[in-house]
């Protein structure tokens, strides 16, 4: 089966982001596919390259990145939600004339249409909300 995930919660602030990650791990372990993970609302902070949790806490952005690398996951961060909240890739940093960028490698910024596309082309879309 082919899943897509909508992650609508930030790490640390809400548990939902961690639940989504565990779901992704479990689904992949059972041999299912993950068409896309779409990060929306405060969920855009899952794509932070700068998040630096203490060593005894879960580093979700790093875990998503590692999982994506291992399984070639499509991690898409909603561009409109992200730029408002200060999550930028190099392109957007240039566009808004900002001194740096902080989107983690393995994530990409794209439009909300990618959520609709994911829902259309997956067997199930599961929302992890807050």
């Amino acid at each position, binding site marked *: 089966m082919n899943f897509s995930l909508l992650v*609508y919660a930030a790490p640390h602030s809400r548990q939902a982001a961690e639940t989504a990650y565990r779901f992704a791990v479990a689904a992949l372990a059972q041999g299912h596919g993950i068409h896309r993970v779409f990060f929306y*609302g405060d969920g855009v902070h899952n794509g932070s390259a700068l998040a630096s949790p203490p060593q005894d806490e879960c580093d979700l952005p790093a875990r998503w990145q590692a999982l994506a690398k291992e399984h070639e996951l499509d991690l898409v961060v909603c561009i*409109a939600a992200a730029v408002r909240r200060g999550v930028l890739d190099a392109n957007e940093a240039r566009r808004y004339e900002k001194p740096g960028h902080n989107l983690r490698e393995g994530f990409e910024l794209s439009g*909300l249409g990618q959520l*609709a596309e994911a829902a*259309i082309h997956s067997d199930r879309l599961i*929302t992890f909300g807050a």
Partner: protein
Amino acid sequence: MSHSKTFLIISRRPPYGSSHARDALDTALTTAVFEQPVAMLFQGDGVLQLLKGQEPAAVRQKNLGATLSALPMYDIENLYACADALAQRGLTQDDLILPVQPLDRAGIAALIRNHDVVLNF
């Protein structure tokens, strides 16, 4: 079309206090642009989005009600509201910025069952 699904967006939060209502609306509009059939259900505090007379300039936000009233122009014409939520807040159709079909519990359950994708906000 093999690659078409019906979407139901359930919007449960009041406007302005959080970005949920705006995000629900943007998702509905984007999905409609992708030419997917989209219905919206306003439930719980979400019905408060439909109130006439919103003037959010003083809180530096855009008028959500004004955008909502444009939904039919985007071919989002299946607009529903939880009848209980309207009644609990003493709201009738005259109080609302655009016409919505009130649904009872059974109607809402059927609405969910009749859509391929359900997105809650």
